[in-house]
């Protein structure tokens, strides 16, 4: 309780400290009683439960109801927004808040499906760790159109009882696969994790990785990406099912790791291994690690569509999700274990503070499509 009071007095103080505190108060008043329809991926019971908790807290503190609309893919929300745009529905839309990043953000930004910049008006913005790349999303400037929510890092999971020295680089993975055929693979692109694996490998193998941070040029694409394809040609020969089949997504690699079909699983959450153990998905002897060069890292964000009906409610909800309380809870590995975007000193004494691996930033988003297309051409049929 003391902590809560301290937290709220801090919150109040900082609110008053801001120039536009009156604006924020108005927003909170307007938000009272609003229902925020939050479109977010619904495939994880941990995340769903966390959002149920957030709803309870928001209802109690701010009178805002946070309704999680579970989707299998956030593009379902974007399709609806495109439909609303087609019908010129520029207010009172049905989606108030979305959980996005990467290409989905770029699409929404390019087609003006997002509200005006808002993040700097959020009282809790001050706690955000600005040393993280919170102002760019896969190298696309966010321009205040989306607020960071958590950090993703590409990590690999293995079983300590089975593997002594897991490969520390993509080159070592090839060596490992040669001595242990049929035991390594990666999710099939264009799945999110699969394409990330390609990007991570190309960053390591390329002679000139800087080129990956500017837009793809058709003329140089083949030359720059060549090392990746010759690597994959070799890798597939000794990969799981000879590279003729691939796991569909990260979850399947976890399942295959547990079944003993694969030696390495892939994940974007360094703490997923803990929650998976607790849930009984993985053995207790499993552990996550990043490659020696670092982990491909990105941030996932919250944003508000241009026509949201409960815009104020959404702002209040996003502000709450950025609060030290909500972020500490989220980072708790028994809850979700998603690394925080706040300065770590701001977290309340969470049972396990999440440490991040050395990070490698995401290439320019245009590489995503280019790599996926070329992969499809070479291996997809």
């Amino acid at each position, binding site marked *: 309780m003391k902590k809560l009071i301290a937290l709220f007095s801090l919150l109040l103080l900082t609110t008053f400290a801001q120039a536009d505190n009156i604006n924020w108060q108005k927003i909170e008043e307007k938000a009272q009683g609003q229902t925020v*329809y939050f*479109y977010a*991926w*619904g*495939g*994880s*019971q941990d995340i769903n439960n966390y959002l149920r908790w957030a709803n309870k807290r928001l209802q109690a503190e701010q009178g805002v109801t946070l*309704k999680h*609309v*579970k*989707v*299998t*893919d956030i*593009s*379902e929300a*974007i*399709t*609806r927004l*495109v*439909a*609303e*745009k*087609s*019908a010129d*529905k520029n207010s*009172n839309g*049905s*989606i108030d808040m979305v959980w996005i990043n*990467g*290409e989905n953000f*770029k*699409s929404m930004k*390019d*087609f003006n499906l997002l509200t005006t910049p808002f993040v700097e008006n959020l009282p809790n913005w001050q706690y955000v760790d600005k040393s993280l790349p919170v102002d760019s999303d896969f190298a696309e400037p966010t321009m205040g159109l989306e607020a960071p929510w958590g950090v993703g890092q590409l990590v690999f999971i293995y079983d300590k009882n089975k593997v002594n020295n897991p490969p520390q680089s993509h080159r070592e993975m090839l060596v490992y696969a040669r001595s242990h055929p*049929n035991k390594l693979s990666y999710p*099939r692109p*264009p799945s999110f994790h699969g394409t990330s694996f390609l990007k991570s490998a190309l960053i390591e193998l390329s002679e000139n990785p800087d080129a990956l941070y500017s837009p793809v040029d058709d003329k140089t694409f083949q030359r720059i990406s060549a090392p990746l394809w010759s690597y994959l040609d070799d890798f597939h020969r000794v990969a*799981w*099912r000879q590279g*003729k*089949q*691939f796991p*569909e997504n990260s*979850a*399947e690699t976890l*399942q*295959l790791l*547990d*079944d*003993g*079909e694969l030696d390495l699983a892939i994940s974007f959450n360094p703490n997923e291994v803990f929650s998976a153990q607790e*849930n*009984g*998905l993985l*053995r207790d002897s499993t552990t996550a690690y990043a490659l020696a060069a670092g982990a491909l890292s990105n941030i996932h964000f919250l944003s508000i569509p241009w026509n949201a009906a409960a815009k104020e409610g959404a702002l209040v909800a996003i502000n709450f999700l950025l609060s030290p309380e909500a972020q500490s809870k989220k980072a708790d590995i028994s809850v979700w274990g998603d690394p925080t975007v706040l300065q770590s000193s701001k977290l309340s004494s969470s049972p396990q503070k999440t440490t991040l691996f050395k990070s490698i930033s995401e290439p320019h988003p245009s590489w995503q499509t280019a790599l996926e297309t070329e992969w*499809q*051409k070479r*291996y*997809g*049929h």
Partner: protein
Amino acid sequence: MNASIQKISFQFLLILAILVCFTPLLPGLLGLFFSAFSYIPAINLQTFSLTGFFELLHWPGLRESILITLFVSLSSTFLSALLAFSILQSCWNKAYWHKVESLLAPILALPHVAFAIGFAFLFTPSGFIARILNTLFNDLGIANWSLINDPYGLGLILGLTIKEIPFLLFMSIPLLKQLNVNSTLVSAQSLGYSKAQTWQKIILPQWLPKIRFTLFAVMAYSLSVVDVALVIGPTSPATFPVLIWQWLNDPDLATLPKASAGALLLLLTCIVLLYLIRFIEWLTIVKCRSWQTSGRRALPLAGKSALLVTYLISLIPLPLLILWSFAQRWPFPELFPTHWSLRFWQQEWTFLWGIIGNSIFIALISATVALLFAIVIHEHSIREMADRRRFVVPRLIISIPMLAPQLSILFGIQVATLFVAHQYYYLWVIWAHIFFVFPYVYLVLDGPWRSYEKRLDMVALSLGMSPLKVWWKIKRPVLLPTLCIAWAVGISVSLAQYLPTLMLAGGRISTLTTEAVALSSGQDRRISAIYALLQSLVPFFFYFIAIFASQKTGMIINQSTVNKRSIAHHVPDSKKSDYY
């Protein structure tokens, strides 16, 4: 006076039915055409062009994908029809047929995806069969080949075939009851034909035209299925509908024209295949029918083993799913979970009731309305055909909601609701459910309605009954088994709708299916198992009622309780063994 009121209200219903069931096609198809021809102003595509089609044609792997899709669709349709017929031939009216019928309820109630998950767990290299082998033969290790996601789609063919056989059996029940199989058998056998010959040469040519529309549905489903193909289908390349689904979900909105062009191509392919099935039927039944009359050859069809395999593979996923839903940990190669837990049930329990209520509410309304409309349109068609006026609703139009990828026609429908008044979420969702349920209900009624003995009506009319009374007193009781079955199918189709509910409800309405599908995207077998079971429970209840009702109703001669006695009277002693 009375008659004219009846006539007017019938016409009112007819117009309402046509409006409700077919108007969504207009925005749906328009939306599909516009986006296939790259006209989507919301994403700055403001001129018609063929870009989408060019991109589609240049997509590497398109040919392989379409070929494998055709292969899967045709072979699973053909196999399921063949096997369903051989099961009927071997088992119809056997003493155990009752059990065969009753077991259909749980099999049909299990949603396709849930079946696919169970099927996959049975056959993956670390699956249940592999675990049994591993226990028996000590440490075989894990095979580096799998029937699941195999490149030739064999796993998908097997899965779809096995899932469709029970559906075909279920749809054949009212048909065979009308066909008077028993008297046919008696007369054919008195002419010296064996039972197999009678079934193949006499009953098949009658069964096939009546089951035609159902076969269309089976074929269309296998051609356009996404969820099952994602779980057990080939991946290099994936089947065509899966590709379209992925393109439609692509974050890069510029792929929308390609996706829609693909959806249009799929729709056309579907229509071609429908005509192909119709052509094959015509070829075997009408054109080249010498096999029906010449010689006494009959194919040896192993109906009983087909029945056994189908039922085993269809029913085993159920206990497996129950085990999974209580499993905390179940690693390879254990035959049973090593740790148990109730938490997955407990966590969801409190949220379930509202969701189940919603699902049943929507399903009951949409199935009932769709049933009423289907009856009205069938009655209308039959009268028009009789008067040779032919103001009949073309079957193709009726079946479009069944054939076209839902996502592609829902976009246009969604835009239309936004233009009108999108906040009436329940109205739109129920309407969309009626729209997608209607073709299935219509198809269940199709065979029985067309083969209904019109002379019964004529006799009653000539005795001075009003048409409505004739319908209610004569036709309805005779067709009651069909009506029950159609209603149950309607309810289960409505319960399974994911996209229409999600897209038109704007997230305001959650059903068991929206929850189940969203959760299953996390690929946690345990959560998927819970929702799969819950998804089956509700339709199971309604299928059970329908099967029970259909056994107790219909023409007296065909009611199962009376059946055996009445046949027993007709059959000479020596032949009795054939029926029991």
